């Protein structure tokens, strides 16, 4: 057996290593005076994990296939007669296939680079041990999620990455805005999680009835179960049930991947350290939603209705998020909106049945988006501000960062030969082939195409504002400088991936990886520029976006929309994020909290009031009765005699009457 295949069986070591790192740094990090010690330990362990991850990915390229390993029973609900005569086993284990190998590659490589970069970026921070502990736990959870071999295990890690994200967004917890953003992220994704859980229930019971002989079940992405078929539930027809389950999965994915309408948390999540934004909120965790959809579409499959819904959500979000990025003054939030938009492309691709195409974009996007974030991080690290309108002229003092940001921008804008071009073009091209048979996809495809223009525009607007011009617009800013080598090395490596990552489709092994799962949808995905006209259109749109950005913002120009312009209301709408954030706040702080206050009032004064009413009634009654207690002996004697008479009446008159008339036993 091949050495790389042997590695599959040890895949579980990757999350385990990161847990060790978490425990090591978390428990002993604060004990040691040298704070960076913990950081380097985490970087070292992350490096080992990366080597394993890359090894597994190479093994998968050499031998594409599905390998289920290291199963153990997490929860065995045995001996519970009823619907499960043989009991239920919820099994945890690892599953290595092209999907997870690709994802594992992204997570371990970007994870390692971010760990390294953080040594420089976070070196001044008091909470360094906490930071590295939480980041290690996140990487453990994320690699665990990628390697999960069933939906429940997936959910366990899914929630764990969510809570790590919660803690890392709220890393600067003294800041009220950070604490608030963390809360928002947790609760909005929680809505998706709840839907996801329902989806799991439906799949659990639905597929349990088909038994292990079902075609998809052979893939192993399923709960293990007893040999007897489970009872079918309800009278809902299976295709309706499947559609609902698919929509629930979409709900979960939308929460995690910040798709409309659950996207509001991601821009606010930029309150966390920039490194966290790069790793969690650009490259890995937010991509978990896309990964979930891909995994579901490959192993279980979506109904046509589900597919349309997923395409609609993804396509709309692509355009919708891009519009908000156009006006925003904060460098990190511009990139955050861009992330939402790019995730929309991936969701759309998976929805249309091209899971691996979506995952290919996830792959390239992870690198160039992490690059953009880390470059922005260097700027923020140097200047201490995130406001684009205060920056300017940074390309001279920060040559590496400026170049890196430009490369990332070109990749994002889809300019060949940068990585983003290949993957985005594949999405648009593959979907174009589907449009004939699915006319309802048309509007979303058009929106996605238009978003190409917006994407190129907003990212180069940011570049010209930060790096173009002659010097900072805010003279109070400190002089800019490059970070130390630990910050520059990841930028260089990621730049390399952003330039050449897309060309990997011409590598046979990698292409084999990407062709996986083609059988599931029946349509082979398209790789490379097969339709040159289409590529021409999208590249032209991208170039036009860059051109417009240069025309409006290049050479230190500042474009100010005239007050009288009819576009002003649109600008306000975009700056206020379509008022959706305000709507969410209203629902949370006014509607739900108002209901809660009302319920509390009812609880205190109506329900408990009734209890107190009883109390008062009994009090009043006993007060009346007490007056009979005069202390006069002859009154008591009268009560005794009256009571005695009452007993006589009961015994001699009432009881015989009852016995005679009611009869019976």
């Amino acid at each position, binding site marked *: 057996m091949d050495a790389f295949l042997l590695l599959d069986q040890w895949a579980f070591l990757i999350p385990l290593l990161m847990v060790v790192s978490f425990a090591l740094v978390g428990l002993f990090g604060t004990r040691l005076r040298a704070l960076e010690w913990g950081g380097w330990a985490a970087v070292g362990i992350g490096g080992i994990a990366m080597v394993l991850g890359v090894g597994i990915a190479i093994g998968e390229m050499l031998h594409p296939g599905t390998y289920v390993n290291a199963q153990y029973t997490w*929860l065995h609900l045995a001996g*519970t007669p009823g619907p499960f005569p043989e009991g239920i086993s919820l099994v945890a284990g690892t599953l290595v296939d092209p999907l997870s190998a690709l994802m594992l590659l992204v997570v371990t490589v970007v994870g390692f680079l971010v760990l390294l970069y953080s040594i420089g970026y976070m070196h001044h921070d008091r909470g360094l041990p906490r930071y590295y502990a939480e980041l290690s736990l996140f990487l453990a959870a994320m690699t665990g999620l990628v390697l999960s071999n069933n939906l429940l295990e997936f959910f366990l890690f899914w929630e764990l990455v969510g809570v790590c994200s919660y803690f890392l967004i709220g890393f600067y*917890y*003294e800041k009220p805005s950070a604490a608030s953003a*963390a809360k928002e992220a947790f609760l909005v994704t929680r809505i998706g999680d*709840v839907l996801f859980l329902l989806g799991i229930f439906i799949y659990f019971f639905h597929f349990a009835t088909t038994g292990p002989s079902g075609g998809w079940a052979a893939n192993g992405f399923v709960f293990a179960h007893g040999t007897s078929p489970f009872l079918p539930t309800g009278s809902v027809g299976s295709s309706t049930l499947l559609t609902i389950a698919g929509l629930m999965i979409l709900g979960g994915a939308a929460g995690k991947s910040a798709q409309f309408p659950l996207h509001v948390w991601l821009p606010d999540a930029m309150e966390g350290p920039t490194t966290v934004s790069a790793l969690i909120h650009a490259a890995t965790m937010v991509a978990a939603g896309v990964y979930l959809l891909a995994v579901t579409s490959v192993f279980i499959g979506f109904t046509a209705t589900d597919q349309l819904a997923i395409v609609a959500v993804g396509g709309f979000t692509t355009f919708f998020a891009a519009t908000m990025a156009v006006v925003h003054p904060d460098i990190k939030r511009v990139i955050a909106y861009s992330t939402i938009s790019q995730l929309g492309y991936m969701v759309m691709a998976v929805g249309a049945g091209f899971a691996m195409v979506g995952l290919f974009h996830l792959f390239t996007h992870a690198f160039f988006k992490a690059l953009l974030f880390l470059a922005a991080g260097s700027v923020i690290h140097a200047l201490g501000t995130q406001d684009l309108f205060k920056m300017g002229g940074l390309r001279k003092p920060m040559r590496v960062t400026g170049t890196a940001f430009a490369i990332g921008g070109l990749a994002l804008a889809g300019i060949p030969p940068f990585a983003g071009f290949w993957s985005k073009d594949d999405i648009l091209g593959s979907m174009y082939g589907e449009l004939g048979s699915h006319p309802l996809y048309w509007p979303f495809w058009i929106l996605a195409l238009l978003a190409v223009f917006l994407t190129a525009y907003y990212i180069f607007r940011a570049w010209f504002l930060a790096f173009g011009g002659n010097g900072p617009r805010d003279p109070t800013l400190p002089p800019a400088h490059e970070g130390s080598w630990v910050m520059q090395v990841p930028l260089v490596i990621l730049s390399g991936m952003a330039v050449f990552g897309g060309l990997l489709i011409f590598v046979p092994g990698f292409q084999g990886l990407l062709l996986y799962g083609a059988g599931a949808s029946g349509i082979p995905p398209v790789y490379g520029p097969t339709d040159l006209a289409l590529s021409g259109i999208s590249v032209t749109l991208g170039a036009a976006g860059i051109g417009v950005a240069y025309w409006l913002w290049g050479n230190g120009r500042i474009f100010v929309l005239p007050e009288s312009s009819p576009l002003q209301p649109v600008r306000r709408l975009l700056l206020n994020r379509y008022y959706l954030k305000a709507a969410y706040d209203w629902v949370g702080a006014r509607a*739900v909290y108002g209901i*809660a206050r009302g319920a509390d009032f009812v609880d205190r004064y109506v329900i408990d009031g009734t209890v107190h009413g009883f109390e008062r009634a009994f009090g009043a009654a006993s007060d009346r009765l007490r007056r009979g207690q005069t202390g006069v002996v002859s009154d008591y004697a009268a009560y005794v005699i009256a009571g005695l008479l009452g007993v006589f009446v009961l015994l001699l008159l009432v009881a015989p009457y009852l016995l005679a008339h009611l009869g019976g036993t």
Partner: protein
Amino acid sequence: MFPILSAVLATLLVGTVLTFLSGKSARWVALATSFVFLAEVAYLLLQFPGWAGFAGGVPQFADGESYAWIHLGWLQVNYTLGIDGISLVLLVLTAILQLATVVYSWGETKKPAAWFGLLLLTCLGCVGVFVALDVLLFFLFWEAVLVPMFFIIGYWGGPRRRYAAIKFFVYTHVASIVMLVGLLALVFYSHATSFDYASVYAAAPSLSVVTQAFLFLSLFFGFGVKFPIVPFHTWLPDAHVEAPTGGSVLLAGLLLKLGGYGLIRWAVFVLPNGFHEVQPVLFVVAFASIAWGSVVSLAQRDLKRMVAFSSINHMGIVLLAIAVGSSLGLLAAVLLMFAHGIVSALLFMSSGSVHHTFGTRDIASVGGITPRTPVLATMIMIGSLASLGLPWLISFPAEFTALLATWDRLAYWVLLPLGILVVTAAFYIWMMQRMLFGPEKGIPESAHDLPAYETVGMGILAAAAIVFGVLPFLLVNLITASPIRVFPGV
């Protein structure tokens, strides 16, 4: 065979008496008793043979003991004890909670002998309820729990302690009387040969369905008030807010479980036909408790009151799991009772520590406590995350199983408890945002992190929450070692 269950009861009884007598060193006696108790429960665990099942329709218990107690003509009352997987899980919970509570209240200075003695007495009563297999014995233990708790609230409690103690006592006592009437009617109408569980169990099916339904309702009311169920829950927030921390811990961790245990053991198992008749009532009450507990929690300003209302929510899920009437549901209910026992105890300890560290439990007036009291903040985090059902912590496997069972029987109705999960997350996360994060606010100069004994007390519970959350099969295998009665017609 060595009467191990009697030995457990005797340990606690002797320990209680010695604690009462030992003055200033009472805490050492209580600690020693807790360790002996824990060792005995560990012995029970190791020896637990699994349940033999319902041989010939008769429930089987392990470590059974039976001695004649009151035999007067047809009145055959025995001292009968026995355990199965369900009671064993709750015994484990009792042992853990007793140890944690004794350690946590190590610094108690107000009449320590009486305090520790009453703590042990409460645990004794609970253990008695979990192991008694005789109607009268069960009821005596059931009532015996009220007395020490009444004094714990009434003497060591907060400013309105008298009101809360009396409300607690009267409310639950009225419910107990309804329950007693139900139990006695069950024995007499079914013409059971004795008060033993086995004979009541064997005789109950002879009752008509309507009789069973009414008996079930009376038992449900009695057990339900302890749960507590909406709308008979208002004693709980008051009792919790006024009770001292140790009292709250036992109240939420153990006393509420008596209701769930009683309902399963004495109502659902014994009267399955009656149970099926009134199932819709149970569903309505369960849904009401789940929604009400969670929504009202959101509006609370007092941390302890908030946790108290969240208990109503969680016990509502327990009731729902029982009400779906499947073996899976019962399994989930027992698991969830254990989980809630651990987690709510941790949260009540946290709010007690918040109270004496910052002088207030008002969520809005204390903020940013994490840098000053990192250990306390960590405990609050673990407790809150566990309580809102985060995987890898103990509540998740239980809630997952409960909701799975609910989907199995009620299909889309499961959306209600699922949706409420978001509200539950909301009030915990919002509380953490206000109390743990943000700029420092309302922290007195003298505030310092937890004393060692409180850290250890809470640490025991936090460790239990994590261990059983990561490895839930440790508990589940214990419960499923007792085949749960197959419901007729299901």
